[in-house]
Protein backbone atom coordinates (compact mmCIF):
# COMPACT_ATOMS: atom_id res chain seq x y z
CA UNK A 1 0.00 0.00 0.00
CA UNK A 2 2.74 2.41 1.04
CA UNK A 3 4.77 1.53 -2.00
CA UNK A 4 1.84 2.11 -4.26
CA UNK A 5 1.32 5.51 -2.68
CA UNK A 6 4.95 6.40 -3.24
CA UNK A 7 4.78 5.26 -6.80
CA UNK A 8 1.75 7.44 -7.30
CA UNK A 9 3.51 10.41 -5.71
CA UNK A 10 6.42 10.09 -8.08
CA UNK A 11 4.31 9.41 -11.15
CA UNK A 12 4.09 11.60 -14.19
CA UNK A 13 0.33 11.75 -13.76
CA UNK A 14 0.53 13.63 -10.48
CA UNK A 15 3.42 15.75 -11.69
CA UNK A 16 1.55 17.06 -14.70
CA UNK A 17 -1.60 17.45 -12.61
CA UNK A 18 0.16 19.78 -10.20
CA UNK A 19 1.46 21.88 -13.04
CA UNK A 20 -1.89 22.32 -14.75
CA UNK A 21 -4.13 24.90 -13.04
CA UNK A 22 -7.13 24.07 -15.26
CA UNK A 23 -6.95 20.43 -14.23
CA UNK A 24 -6.68 21.31 -10.54
CA UNK A 25 -9.63 23.71 -10.61
CA UNK A 26 -11.75 21.24 -12.60
CA UNK A 27 -10.85 18.46 -10.22
CA UNK A 28 -11.74 20.53 -7.16
CA UNK A 29 -15.07 21.58 -8.65
CA UNK A 30 -15.85 18.03 -9.67
CA UNK A 31 -14.99 16.76 -6.19
CA UNK A 32 -17.27 19.37 -4.61
CA UNK A 33 -20.11 18.52 -6.99
CA UNK A 34 -19.78 14.81 -6.31
CA UNK A 35 -19.67 15.43 -2.56
CA UNK A 36 -22.81 17.55 -2.88
CA UNK A 37 -24.60 14.85 -4.78
CA UNK A 38 -23.62 12.10 -2.36
CA UNK A 39 -24.45 14.19 0.69
CA UNK A 40 -27.60 15.72 -0.80
CA UNK A 41 -29.94 14.31 1.89
CA UNK A 42 -27.72 15.79 4.60
CA UNK A 43 -26.94 19.16 3.07
CA UNK A 44 -30.13 20.06 1.26
CA UNK A 45 -32.32 22.34 3.39
CA UNK A 46 -35.54 20.57 2.29
CA UNK A 47 -36.53 17.15 1.04
CA UNK A 48 -37.97 17.71 -2.44
CA UNK A 49 -39.54 14.22 -2.53
CA UNK A 50 -41.50 14.87 0.63
CA UNK A 51 -44.90 15.89 -0.69
CA UNK A 52 -46.15 16.90 2.77
CA UNK A 53 -43.37 19.45 3.15
CA UNK A 54 -44.27 21.32 -0.04
CA UNK A 55 -46.57 24.29 0.16
CA UNK A 56 -48.06 25.48 -3.12
CA UNK A 57 -48.25 28.95 -1.63
CA UNK A 58 -44.46 29.07 -1.86
CA UNK A 59 -44.52 28.53 -5.62
CA UNK A 60 -42.34 30.64 -7.92
CA UNK A 61 -40.51 32.61 -5.27
CA UNK A 62 -37.53 34.31 -6.91
CA UNK A 63 -33.97 33.96 -5.56
CA UNK A 64 -33.06 35.58 -2.27
CA UNK A 65 -31.22 38.63 -3.63
CA UNK A 66 -33.94 39.68 -6.07
CA UNK A 67 -37.14 41.51 -5.33
CA UNK A 68 -39.69 39.27 -3.61
CA UNK A 69 -37.07 36.78 -2.43
CA UNK A 70 -37.68 34.74 0.68
CA UNK A 71 -35.10 34.02 3.39
CA UNK A 72 -36.09 30.36 3.46
CA UNK A 73 -35.26 29.73 -0.17
CA UNK A 74 -31.81 30.78 -1.30
CA UNK A 75 -32.32 30.17 -5.02
CA UNK A 76 -36.09 30.50 -4.96
CA UNK A 77 -38.70 27.81 -5.56
CA UNK A 78 -40.15 26.03 -8.53
CA UNK A 79 -43.75 25.97 -9.73
CA UNK A 80 -44.86 23.51 -7.09
CA UNK A 81 -43.22 25.39 -4.25
CA UNK A 82 -40.18 23.14 -3.83
CA UNK A 83 -36.93 24.67 -2.76
CA UNK A 84 -34.87 24.94 -5.92
CA UNK A 85 -31.51 24.47 -4.25
CA UNK A 86 -32.58 21.19 -2.65
CA UNK A 87 -34.12 19.97 -5.91
CA UNK A 88 -30.86 20.78 -7.65
CA UNK A 89 -28.79 18.76 -5.19
CA UNK A 90 -31.11 15.79 -5.53
CA UNK A 91 -31.26 16.30 -9.29
CA UNK A 92 -27.49 16.33 -9.59
CA UNK A 93 -27.42 13.18 -7.49
CA UNK A 94 -29.76 11.41 -9.90
CA UNK A 95 -27.90 12.71 -12.97
CA UNK A 96 -24.55 11.54 -11.62
CA UNK A 97 -25.99 8.20 -10.54
CA UNK A 98 -27.57 7.55 -13.93
CA UNK A 99 -24.51 8.84 -15.76
CA UNK A 100 -22.07 6.61 -13.88
CA UNK A 101 -24.41 3.62 -14.02
CA UNK A 102 -24.81 4.00 -17.75
CA UNK A 103 -21.06 4.33 -18.27
CA UNK A 104 -20.47 1.23 -16.17
CA UNK A 105 -22.95 -0.71 -18.26
CA UNK A 106 -21.62 0.51 -21.58
CA UNK A 107 -18.06 -0.17 -20.44
CA UNK A 108 -18.97 -3.75 -19.53
CA UNK A 109 -20.71 -4.41 -22.83
CA UNK A 110 -18.10 -2.52 -24.82
CA UNK A 111 -15.07 -4.11 -23.18
CA UNK A 112 -16.56 -7.57 -23.53
CA UNK A 113 -17.32 -7.11 -27.22
CA UNK A 114 -14.09 -5.23 -27.90
CA UNK A 115 -11.97 -7.95 -26.31
CA UNK A 116 -13.67 -10.74 -28.18
CA UNK A 117 -13.65 -8.84 -31.42
CA UNK A 118 -9.99 -7.90 -31.17
CA UNK A 119 -8.67 -11.19 -29.86
CA UNK A 120 -10.65 -13.64 -31.94
CA UNK A 121 -10.69 -11.53 -35.09
CA UNK A 122 -11.89 -12.87 -38.45
CA UNK A 123 -15.59 -13.05 -39.20
CA UNK A 124 -16.66 -12.39 -35.61
CA UNK A 125 -14.61 -9.21 -35.58
CA UNK A 126 -15.92 -8.01 -38.91
CA UNK A 127 -19.51 -8.62 -37.88
CA UNK A 128 -19.28 -7.02 -34.43
CA UNK A 129 -17.47 -3.96 -35.71
CA UNK A 130 -19.95 -3.46 -38.52
CA UNK A 131 -22.74 -3.55 -35.95
CA UNK A 132 -20.88 -0.99 -33.87
CA UNK A 133 -20.25 1.20 -36.92
CA UNK A 134 -23.85 1.10 -37.98
CA UNK A 135 -25.09 1.90 -34.50
CA UNK A 136 -22.62 4.76 -34.17
CA UNK A 137 -23.64 6.18 -37.51
CA UNK A 138 -27.15 6.60 -36.12
CA UNK A 139 -25.79 8.85 -33.38
CA UNK A 140 -26.08 7.78 -29.80
CA UNK A 141 -28.68 10.41 -28.98
CA UNK A 142 -31.01 9.21 -31.72
CA UNK A 143 -30.69 5.61 -30.56
CA UNK A 144 -31.31 6.63 -26.95
CA UNK A 145 -34.36 8.69 -27.88
CA UNK A 146 -35.81 5.88 -29.99
CA UNK A 147 -35.27 3.20 -27.34
CA UNK A 148 -36.73 5.37 -24.60
CA UNK A 149 -39.71 6.26 -26.76
CA UNK A 150 -40.33 2.58 -27.41
CA UNK A 151 -39.97 1.76 -23.71
CA UNK A 152 -42.32 4.52 -22.73
CA UNK A 153 -45.00 3.37 -25.13
CA UNK A 154 -44.44 -0.25 -24.12
CA UNK A 155 -44.48 0.25 -20.37
CA UNK A 156 -46.98 3.10 -20.25
CA UNK A 157 -46.02 6.45 -18.77
CA UNK A 158 -46.78 5.48 -15.17
CA UNK A 159 -44.68 2.30 -15.07
CA UNK A 160 -41.92 3.99 -17.03
CA UNK A 161 -41.66 6.78 -14.48
CA UNK A 162 -41.48 4.28 -11.63
CA UNK A 163 -38.65 2.40 -13.30
CA UNK A 164 -37.02 5.49 -14.79
CA UNK A 165 -33.59 5.19 -13.14
CA UNK A 166 -32.71 1.61 -14.17
CA UNK A 167 -34.36 2.08 -17.55
CA UNK A 168 -32.32 5.19 -18.28
CA UNK A 169 -29.15 3.38 -17.28
CA UNK A 170 -30.02 0.57 -19.69
CA UNK A 171 -31.05 2.94 -22.49
CA UNK A 172 -27.94 5.10 -22.34
CA UNK A 173 -25.73 2.08 -21.72
CA UNK A 174 -27.01 0.34 -24.82
CA UNK A 175 -26.89 3.48 -26.91
CA UNK A 176 -23.21 4.18 -26.32
CA UNK A 177 -21.36 0.86 -26.03
CA UNK A 178 -19.76 1.02 -29.51
CA UNK A 179 -17.35 3.75 -28.35
CA UNK A 180 -15.84 1.37 -25.82
CA UNK A 181 -15.89 -1.61 -28.11
CA UNK A 182 -13.93 0.24 -30.79
CA UNK A 183 -11.40 1.65 -28.36
CA UNK A 184 -10.79 -1.66 -26.62
CA UNK A 185 -10.57 -3.52 -29.90
CA UNK A 186 -8.01 -1.10 -31.27
CA UNK A 187 -5.73 -1.51 -28.28
CA UNK A 188 -6.24 -5.28 -28.17
CA UNK A 189 -5.06 -5.42 -31.77
CA UNK A 190 -2.00 -3.48 -30.71
CA UNK A 191 -1.28 -5.79 -27.80
CA UNK A 192 -2.13 -9.27 -28.96
CA UNK A 193 0.95 -9.83 -31.08
CA UNK A 194 3.38 -8.72 -28.42
CA UNK A 195 5.78 -11.18 -26.87
CA UNK A 196 4.20 -11.41 -23.46
CA UNK A 197 0.96 -12.63 -24.99
CA UNK A 198 2.93 -15.12 -27.04
CA UNK A 199 4.67 -16.27 -23.87
CA UNK A 200 1.39 -16.69 -22.05
CA UNK A 201 0.09 -18.75 -24.93
CA UNK A 202 3.20 -20.91 -24.98
CA UNK A 203 2.92 -21.83 -21.31
CA UNK A 204 -0.55 -23.05 -22.09
CA UNK A 205 -2.84 -20.51 -20.48
CA UNK A 206 -6.40 -20.54 -21.65
CA UNK A 207 -7.66 -17.93 -24.10
CA UNK A 208 -10.05 -16.41 -21.59
CA UNK A 209 -7.31 -16.10 -18.98
CA UNK A 210 -4.99 -14.41 -21.46
CA UNK A 211 -7.70 -12.04 -22.57
CA UNK A 212 -8.79 -11.04 -19.09
CA UNK A 213 -5.58 -11.13 -17.11
CA UNK A 214 -2.94 -10.25 -19.66
CA UNK A 215 -4.42 -8.15 -22.44
CA UNK A 216 -7.24 -6.37 -20.66
CA UNK A 217 -5.07 -4.57 -18.06
CA UNK A 218 -2.97 -3.15 -20.88
CA UNK A 219 -5.97 -1.65 -22.61
CA UNK A 220 -7.03 0.29 -19.55
CA UNK A 221 -5.48 3.68 -20.21
CA UNK A 222 -7.52 4.49 -23.32
CA UNK A 223 -10.57 3.10 -21.52
CA UNK A 224 -9.93 5.49 -18.66
CA UNK A 225 -9.59 8.42 -21.04
CA UNK A 226 -12.83 7.78 -22.90
CA UNK A 227 -14.63 6.99 -19.63
CA UNK A 228 -14.40 10.59 -18.48
CA UNK A 229 -15.80 11.88 -21.73
CA UNK A 230 -18.44 9.17 -21.71
CA UNK A 231 -19.65 10.21 -18.24
CA UNK A 232 -20.13 13.73 -19.57
CA UNK A 233 -21.94 12.34 -22.61
CA UNK A 234 -24.15 10.09 -20.51
CA UNK A 235 -25.15 12.96 -18.22
CA UNK A 236 -25.92 15.06 -21.30
CA UNK A 237 -27.99 12.26 -22.84
CA UNK A 238 -29.88 11.81 -19.61
CA UNK A 239 -30.59 15.53 -19.46
CA UNK A 240 -31.74 15.53 -23.07
CA UNK A 241 -34.06 12.57 -22.52
CA UNK A 242 -35.47 14.08 -19.34
CA UNK A 243 -35.94 17.38 -21.10
CA UNK A 244 -37.97 15.63 -23.79
CA UNK A 245 -40.12 14.02 -21.11
CA UNK A 246 -38.63 10.59 -21.81
CA UNK A 247 -36.53 10.48 -18.66
CA UNK A 248 -36.98 11.27 -15.01
CA UNK A 249 -40.49 12.40 -14.04
CA UNK A 250 -41.13 15.85 -12.58
CA UNK A 251 -41.87 14.32 -9.17
CA UNK A 252 -38.32 12.94 -9.01
CA UNK A 253 -36.50 15.47 -11.10
CA UNK A 254 -33.01 15.15 -12.50
CA UNK A 255 -31.30 18.27 -13.81
CA UNK A 256 -32.85 17.74 -17.24
CA UNK A 257 -36.39 17.48 -15.93
CA UNK A 258 -35.86 20.53 -13.72
CA UNK A 259 -34.87 22.49 -16.81
CA UNK A 260 -37.86 21.09 -18.63
CA UNK A 261 -40.32 22.03 -15.88
CA UNK A 262 -38.87 25.52 -15.65
CA UNK A 263 -38.92 26.11 -19.38
CA UNK A 264 -42.68 26.70 -19.59
CA UNK A 265 -42.44 29.45 -17.00
CA UNK A 266 -39.61 31.33 -18.63
CA UNK A 267 -42.14 33.39 -20.56
CA UNK A 268 -43.70 34.67 -17.36
CA UNK A 269 -40.27 35.77 -16.17
CA UNK A 270 -39.43 32.88 -13.80
CA UNK A 271 -35.99 32.45 -15.26
CA UNK A 272 -34.34 30.94 -12.18
CA UNK A 273 -36.10 27.55 -12.37
CA UNK A 274 -34.35 26.92 -15.68
CA UNK A 275 -31.22 28.94 -15.16
CA UNK A 276 -29.69 27.43 -12.02
CA UNK A 277 -30.12 23.74 -12.91
CA UNK A 278 -28.84 24.60 -16.37
CA UNK A 279 -25.72 26.23 -14.96
CA UNK A 280 -25.13 23.29 -12.65
CA UNK A 281 -25.46 20.85 -15.55
CA UNK A 282 -23.10 22.85 -17.77
CA UNK A 283 -20.53 23.22 -15.00
CA UNK A 284 -20.57 19.50 -14.27
CA UNK A 285 -20.24 18.48 -17.90
CA UNK A 286 -17.61 21.12 -18.52
CA UNK A 287 -15.30 20.10 -15.68
CA UNK A 288 -15.60 16.44 -16.64
CA UNK A 289 -14.75 17.33 -20.24
CA UNK A 290 -11.80 19.47 -19.16
CA UNK A 291 -10.48 16.65 -16.98
CA UNK A 292 -10.95 14.25 -19.87
CA UNK A 293 -8.95 16.55 -22.15
CA UNK A 294 -6.18 16.81 -19.62
CA UNK A 295 -6.12 13.05 -19.07
CA UNK A 296 -5.93 12.43 -22.79
CA UNK A 297 -3.00 14.78 -23.15
CA UNK A 298 -1.15 13.13 -20.26
CA UNK A 299 -1.77 9.46 -20.94
CA UNK A 300 -1.72 10.09 -24.68
CA UNK A 301 -2.99 6.71 -25.74
CA UNK A 302 -3.50 5.91 -29.36
CA UNK A 303 -7.22 6.48 -29.56
CA UNK A 304 -9.18 4.98 -32.36
CA UNK A 305 -9.67 7.80 -34.78
CA UNK A 306 -13.02 8.29 -36.42
Amino acid sequence: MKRKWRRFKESYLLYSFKRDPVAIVSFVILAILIMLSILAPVIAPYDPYDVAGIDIMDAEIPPLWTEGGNDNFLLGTDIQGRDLLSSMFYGLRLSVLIGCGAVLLQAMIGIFIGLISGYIGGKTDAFLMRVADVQLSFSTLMVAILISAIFQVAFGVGRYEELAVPLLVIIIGFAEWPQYARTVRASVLGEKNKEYVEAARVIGLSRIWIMVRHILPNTMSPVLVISTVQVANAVMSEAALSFLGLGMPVTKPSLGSLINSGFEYIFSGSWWITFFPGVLLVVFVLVVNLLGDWLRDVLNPKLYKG
Partner: protein
Amino acid sequence: MFAFIVKRVTQAIFVMLVISFIGFSIRQQIGDPVRDIVGERVSVEEREALRDKLGLNDPFVMQYVRFVRNALQGDLGHSFFFKRPALEVIFDKAPATLELVFVSSLLVILISIPIGVYAAINPRNWFSRLIMGCSIVGVSIPVFLTAILLIYLFSVELQWLPSYGRGDTVNVWGWQTGFLTFDGLKHLILPSIALSSIMLPLFIRLIRSEMMEVLETEYIKFAWAKGLHRWRVWFLHAFKNTLLPVITVGGVQIGIMIAYTILTETVFQWQGMGFMFLEAVERSDTSLLVAYMVVVGALFVVVNTVVDVIYGLVNPMVRVAGRK
Protein backbone atom coordinates in the same frame (compact mmCIF):
# COMPACT_ATOMS: atom_id res chain seq x y z
CA MET B 1 -14.96 0.31 -57.46
CA PHE B 2 -18.13 -1.37 -58.68
CA ALA B 3 -17.63 -4.16 -56.14
CA PHE B 4 -17.21 -1.60 -53.41
CA ILE B 5 -20.45 0.15 -54.28
CA VAL B 6 -22.32 -3.14 -54.47
CA LYS B 7 -20.96 -4.11 -51.08
CA ARG B 8 -21.99 -0.83 -49.49
CA VAL B 9 -25.45 -0.95 -51.02
CA THR B 10 -25.99 -4.55 -49.90
CA GLN B 11 -25.04 -3.56 -46.42
CA ALA B 12 -27.39 -0.60 -46.53
CA ILE B 13 -30.24 -2.87 -47.61
CA PHE B 14 -29.40 -5.29 -44.82
CA VAL B 15 -29.44 -2.49 -42.25
CA MET B 16 -32.80 -1.30 -43.56
CA LEU B 17 -34.15 -4.83 -43.20
CA VAL B 18 -32.98 -4.94 -39.60
CA ILE B 19 -34.55 -1.55 -38.90
CA SER B 20 -37.81 -2.59 -40.51
CA PHE B 21 -37.76 -5.82 -38.51
CA ILE B 22 -37.31 -3.90 -35.27
CA GLY B 23 -40.05 -1.49 -36.28
CA PHE B 24 -42.32 -4.35 -37.20
CA SER B 25 -41.73 -6.17 -33.91
CA ILE B 26 -42.50 -2.99 -31.99
CA ARG B 27 -45.76 -2.61 -33.81
CA GLN B 28 -46.57 -6.25 -33.19
CA GLN B 29 -45.79 -6.12 -29.50
CA ILE B 30 -47.05 -2.69 -28.55
CA GLY B 31 -49.35 -1.33 -31.17
CA ASP B 32 -52.85 -2.45 -31.93
CA PRO B 33 -53.74 -1.88 -35.58
CA VAL B 34 -57.38 -2.64 -34.86
CA ARG B 35 -57.51 0.20 -32.39
CA ASP B 36 -55.73 2.39 -34.91
CA ILE B 37 -58.59 1.87 -37.32
CA VAL B 38 -61.78 1.59 -35.32
CA GLY B 39 -60.94 3.15 -31.98
CA GLU B 40 -61.84 1.71 -28.61
CA ARG B 41 -65.60 1.29 -28.66
CA VAL B 42 -66.09 -1.80 -30.78
CA SER B 43 -67.16 -5.21 -29.55
CA VAL B 44 -64.76 -8.12 -29.18
CA GLU B 45 -66.34 -10.19 -31.98
CA GLU B 46 -66.08 -7.36 -34.46
CA ARG B 47 -62.48 -6.85 -33.49
CA GLU B 48 -61.71 -10.53 -34.06
CA ALA B 49 -63.38 -10.42 -37.45
CA LEU B 50 -61.37 -7.39 -38.37
CA ARG B 51 -58.16 -9.04 -37.12
CA ASP B 52 -58.80 -11.97 -39.42
CA LYS B 53 -59.59 -9.71 -42.33
CA LEU B 54 -56.41 -7.70 -41.80
CA GLY B 55 -54.38 -10.88 -41.56
CA LEU B 56 -53.27 -10.21 -38.01
CA ASN B 57 -53.69 -13.84 -37.06
CA ASP B 58 -51.24 -15.00 -39.72
CA PRO B 59 -47.80 -16.35 -38.79
CA PHE B 60 -45.19 -13.77 -37.77
CA VAL B 61 -42.96 -14.22 -40.80
CA MET B 62 -45.81 -13.83 -43.25
CA GLN B 63 -46.86 -10.62 -41.57
CA TYR B 64 -43.31 -9.32 -41.66
CA VAL B 65 -43.02 -10.00 -45.36
CA ARG B 66 -46.27 -8.16 -45.89
CA PHE B 67 -44.99 -5.26 -43.79
CA VAL B 68 -41.84 -4.96 -45.88
CA ARG B 69 -43.79 -5.23 -49.12
CA ASN B 70 -46.16 -2.50 -48.00
CA ALA B 71 -43.29 -0.36 -46.80
CA LEU B 72 -41.63 -0.62 -50.20
CA GLN B 73 -44.84 0.65 -51.76
CA GLY B 74 -44.85 3.58 -49.39
CA ASP B 75 -47.39 2.26 -46.91
CA LEU B 76 -46.06 2.36 -43.37
CA GLY B 77 -49.35 2.02 -41.61
CA HIS B 78 -52.03 4.39 -40.45
CA SER B 79 -51.61 7.06 -37.83
CA PHE B 80 -54.09 6.58 -35.04
CA PHE B 81 -54.27 10.26 -34.17
CA PHE B 82 -54.18 11.93 -37.56
CA LYS B 83 -56.41 9.30 -39.22
CA ARG B 84 -54.13 9.43 -42.25
CA PRO B 85 -51.33 7.28 -43.68
CA ALA B 86 -48.30 7.70 -41.42
CA LEU B 87 -45.94 8.39 -44.30
CA GLU B 88 -48.15 11.23 -45.53
CA VAL B 89 -48.07 12.81 -42.07
CA ILE B 90 -44.29 12.57 -41.95
CA PHE B 91 -43.84 14.02 -45.42
CA ASP B 92 -46.07 16.91 -44.41
CA LYS B 93 -43.72 17.70 -41.55
CA ALA B 94 -40.47 16.93 -43.34
CA PRO B 95 -39.98 20.32 -45.09
CA ALA B 96 -39.89 22.13 -41.75
CA THR B 97 -37.16 19.86 -40.41
CA LEU B 98 -35.18 19.82 -43.63
CA GLU B 99 -35.22 23.60 -43.92
CA LEU B 100 -34.01 23.88 -40.35
CA VAL B 101 -31.21 21.38 -40.93
CA PHE B 102 -30.27 23.09 -44.21
CA VAL B 103 -29.96 26.55 -42.69
CA SER B 104 -28.07 25.22 -39.68
CA SER B 105 -25.61 23.27 -41.85
CA LEU B 106 -25.06 26.41 -43.90
CA LEU B 107 -24.32 28.36 -40.73
CA VAL B 108 -21.96 25.67 -39.49
CA ILE B 109 -20.04 25.53 -42.77
CA LEU B 110 -19.81 29.27 -43.22
CA ILE B 111 -18.64 29.93 -39.67
CA SER B 112 -16.48 26.90 -38.91
CA ILE B 113 -14.28 26.91 -42.02
CA PRO B 114 -12.76 30.40 -41.64
CA ILE B 115 -12.39 30.02 -37.88
CA GLY B 116 -10.97 26.51 -38.06
CA VAL B 117 -8.47 27.47 -40.76
CA TYR B 118 -7.46 30.57 -38.86
CA ALA B 119 -6.92 28.59 -35.65
CA ALA B 120 -4.79 26.06 -37.53
CA ILE B 121 -2.61 28.70 -39.19
CA ASN B 122 -2.04 30.66 -36.00
CA PRO B 123 -2.22 28.06 -33.22
CA ARG B 124 -0.46 30.22 -30.64
CA ASN B 125 -2.50 33.32 -31.31
CA TRP B 126 -4.74 34.54 -28.44
CA PHE B 127 -7.80 34.45 -30.65
CA SER B 128 -7.20 30.80 -31.55
CA ARG B 129 -6.79 29.90 -27.91
CA LEU B 130 -9.97 31.76 -27.06
CA ILE B 131 -11.78 29.87 -29.82
CA MET B 132 -10.49 26.52 -28.57
CA GLY B 133 -11.48 27.40 -25.01
CA CYS B 134 -14.93 28.46 -26.15
CA SER B 135 -15.34 25.30 -28.18
CA ILE B 136 -14.97 23.05 -25.15
CA VAL B 137 -17.50 25.18 -23.30
CA GLY B 138 -19.73 24.98 -26.35
CA VAL B 139 -19.54 21.19 -26.41
CA SER B 140 -20.63 21.13 -22.77
CA ILE B 141 -23.80 23.17 -23.23
CA PRO B 142 -26.79 21.03 -24.21
CA VAL B 143 -28.62 22.24 -27.29
CA PHE B 144 -31.90 22.74 -25.44
CA LEU B 145 -30.22 25.04 -22.96
CA THR B 146 -28.78 27.15 -25.75
CA ALA B 147 -32.23 27.28 -27.27
CA ILE B 148 -33.86 28.35 -24.01
CA LEU B 149 -31.18 30.97 -23.47
CA LEU B 150 -31.77 32.38 -26.95
CA ILE B 151 -35.51 32.49 -26.37
CA TYR B 152 -35.10 34.23 -23.05
CA LEU B 153 -32.68 36.78 -24.46
CA PHE B 154 -34.19 37.58 -27.84
CA SER B 155 -37.87 36.80 -27.34
CA VAL B 156 -38.69 37.45 -23.71
CA GLU B 157 -36.26 40.22 -22.76
CA LEU B 158 -35.50 42.03 -26.02
CA GLN B 159 -38.61 40.88 -27.90
CA TRP B 160 -36.80 41.05 -31.22
CA LEU B 161 -37.55 37.61 -32.57
CA PRO B 162 -40.45 35.18 -32.32
CA SER B 163 -39.99 32.25 -29.97
CA TYR B 164 -42.13 29.50 -31.48
CA GLY B 165 -43.57 28.12 -34.66
CA ARG B 166 -42.61 28.64 -38.28
CA GLY B 167 -44.49 31.85 -39.00
CA ASP B 168 -45.96 32.42 -42.45
CA THR B 169 -45.18 29.75 -44.98
CA VAL B 170 -45.72 29.60 -48.70
CA ASN B 171 -46.72 26.48 -50.56
CA VAL B 172 -44.39 25.83 -53.48
CA TRP B 173 -45.37 22.66 -55.35
CA GLY B 174 -46.52 20.98 -52.18
CA TRP B 175 -43.50 22.06 -50.17
CA GLN B 176 -44.39 24.36 -47.29
CA THR B 177 -41.46 26.72 -47.23
CA GLY B 178 -40.59 29.45 -44.78
CA PHE B 179 -37.76 30.76 -46.93
CA LEU B 180 -39.91 33.05 -49.05
CA THR B 181 -41.59 35.18 -46.43
CA PHE B 182 -39.98 37.70 -44.14
CA ASP B 183 -41.91 36.29 -41.20
CA GLY B 184 -40.81 32.74 -41.99
CA LEU B 185 -37.16 33.77 -42.16
CA LYS B 186 -37.49 35.62 -38.87
CA HIS B 187 -38.83 32.46 -37.26
CA LEU B 188 -35.92 30.48 -38.65
CA ILE B 189 -33.18 32.53 -37.01
CA LEU B 190 -33.28 31.32 -33.43
CA PRO B 191 -33.88 27.59 -34.08
CA SER B 192 -31.13 27.40 -36.67
CA ILE B 193 -28.64 29.19 -34.43
CA ALA B 194 -29.52 26.82 -31.58
CA LEU B 195 -29.17 23.75 -33.78
CA SER B 196 -25.88 24.87 -35.31
CA SER B 197 -24.44 25.63 -31.88
CA ILE B 198 -24.10 21.92 -31.16
CA MET B 199 -22.14 21.17 -34.34
CA LEU B 200 -20.06 24.33 -34.52
CA PRO B 201 -17.46 23.45 -31.84
CA LEU B 202 -17.06 19.96 -33.29
CA PHE B 203 -16.48 21.28 -36.79
CA ILE B 204 -14.07 23.99 -35.72
CA ARG B 205 -11.99 21.43 -33.83
CA LEU B 206 -12.14 18.96 -36.69
CA ILE B 207 -11.06 21.48 -39.32
CA ARG B 208 -8.34 22.85 -37.08
CA SER B 209 -6.81 19.47 -36.28
CA GLU B 210 -7.00 18.18 -39.85
CA MET B 211 -5.52 21.39 -41.21
CA MET B 212 -2.71 21.34 -38.66
CA GLU B 213 -1.93 17.77 -39.62
CA VAL B 214 -1.76 18.70 -43.28
CA LEU B 215 0.44 21.72 -42.55
CA GLU B 216 3.03 19.37 -41.04
CA THR B 217 3.35 17.23 -44.17
CA GLU B 218 6.31 17.14 -46.51
CA TYR B 219 4.64 18.59 -49.55
CA ILE B 220 3.59 21.69 -47.62
CA LYS B 221 7.17 22.13 -46.48
CA PHE B 222 8.18 21.77 -50.09
CA ALA B 223 5.63 24.38 -51.12
CA TRP B 224 7.12 26.76 -48.58
CA ALA B 225 10.61 25.95 -49.84
CA LYS B 226 9.55 26.79 -53.37
CA GLY B 227 8.70 30.22 -52.06
CA LEU B 228 5.02 30.15 -52.93
CA HIS B 229 2.83 32.88 -51.60
CA ARG B 230 1.41 31.93 -48.21
CA TRP B 231 -2.22 32.27 -49.34
CA ARG B 232 -1.46 29.82 -52.11
CA VAL B 233 0.10 27.35 -49.69
CA TRP B 234 -2.70 27.65 -47.17
CA PHE B 235 -5.70 27.54 -49.41
CA LEU B 236 -4.66 25.82 -52.60
CA HIS B 237 -2.35 23.20 -51.11
CA ALA B 238 -3.29 22.71 -47.49
CA PHE B 239 -6.98 23.50 -47.29
CA LYS B 240 -7.94 21.43 -50.30
CA ASN B 241 -6.53 18.34 -48.65
CA THR B 242 -8.24 19.17 -45.39
CA LEU B 243 -11.59 19.09 -47.10
CA LEU B 244 -11.74 15.37 -47.71
CA PRO B 245 -11.86 14.17 -44.10
CA VAL B 246 -14.02 17.15 -43.23
CA ILE B 247 -16.58 16.24 -45.88
CA THR B 248 -16.77 12.61 -44.84
CA VAL B 249 -17.04 13.28 -41.13
CA GLY B 250 -19.20 16.30 -41.81
CA GLY B 251 -21.66 14.40 -43.97
CA VAL B 252 -22.30 11.95 -41.17
CA GLN B 253 -22.54 14.75 -38.61
CA ILE B 254 -25.18 16.52 -40.63
CA GLY B 255 -27.18 13.31 -40.52
CA ILE B 256 -26.73 13.27 -36.78
CA MET B 257 -28.25 16.74 -36.68
CA ILE B 258 -31.60 15.05 -37.31
CA ALA B 259 -31.39 13.68 -33.77
CA TYR B 260 -30.81 17.13 -32.38
CA THR B 261 -33.73 18.54 -34.34
CA ILE B 262 -35.96 16.61 -31.94
CA LEU B 263 -34.63 18.73 -29.08
CA THR B 264 -34.60 22.01 -31.00
CA GLU B 265 -38.05 21.50 -32.40
CA THR B 266 -39.48 20.76 -28.97
CA VAL B 267 -38.13 23.99 -27.54
CA PHE B 268 -39.30 26.13 -30.43
CA GLN B 269 -42.52 24.22 -31.10
CA TRP B 270 -41.23 23.91 -34.64
CA GLN B 271 -43.80 21.87 -36.56
CA GLY B 272 -41.32 19.38 -37.96
CA MET B 273 -40.72 15.65 -37.82
CA GLY B 274 -39.06 15.71 -34.41
CA PHE B 275 -41.93 17.58 -32.79
CA MET B 276 -44.39 15.22 -34.42
CA PHE B 277 -42.40 12.23 -33.17
CA LEU B 278 -42.59 13.35 -29.55
CA GLU B 279 -46.30 14.00 -29.88
CA ALA B 280 -46.67 10.51 -31.31
CA VAL B 281 -44.89 9.11 -28.24
CA GLU B 282 -47.18 11.04 -25.90
CA ARG B 283 -50.26 9.79 -27.75
CA SER B 284 -48.92 6.22 -28.00
CA ASP B 285 -49.36 6.51 -31.75
CA THR B 286 -47.33 3.39 -32.47
CA SER B 287 -47.74 3.31 -36.23
CA LEU B 288 -46.50 6.86 -36.59
CA LEU B 289 -43.62 6.14 -34.22
CA VAL B 290 -42.55 3.12 -36.23
CA ALA B 291 -42.95 5.01 -39.49
CA TYR B 292 -40.75 7.81 -38.15
CA MET B 293 -38.16 5.27 -37.09
CA VAL B 294 -38.09 3.67 -40.53
CA VAL B 295 -37.98 7.02 -42.36
CA VAL B 296 -35.22 8.44 -40.18
CA GLY B 297 -33.36 5.13 -40.38
CA ALA B 298 -33.56 5.26 -44.16
CA LEU B 299 -32.31 8.85 -44.12
CA PHE B 300 -29.29 7.91 -42.01
CA VAL B 301 -28.51 4.85 -44.11
CA VAL B 302 -28.72 6.80 -47.36
CA VAL B 303 -26.54 9.62 -46.06
CA ASN B 304 -23.94 7.22 -44.71
CA THR B 305 -23.85 5.09 -47.82
CA VAL B 306 -23.52 8.09 -50.09
CA VAL B 307 -20.74 9.54 -47.94
CA ASP B 308 -18.93 6.19 -47.94
CA VAL B 309 -19.20 5.81 -51.68
CA ILE B 310 -17.94 9.35 -52.25
CA TYR B 311 -15.07 8.66 -49.92
CA GLY B 312 -14.30 5.47 -51.80
CA LEU B 313 -14.35 7.37 -55.09
CA VAL B 314 -11.96 10.01 -53.86
CA ASN B 315 -9.69 7.86 -51.74
CA PRO B 316 -8.80 4.50 -53.30
CA MET B 317 -7.19 3.29 -50.06
CA VAL B 318 -10.61 2.88 -48.47
CA ARG B 319 -12.10 0.67 -51.09
CA VAL B 320 -9.01 -1.48 -51.44
CA ALA B 321 -8.84 -2.01 -47.70
CA GLY B 322 -12.57 -2.63 -47.67
CA ARG B 323 -12.25 -5.40 -50.23
CA LYS B 324 -9.37 -7.15 -48.47
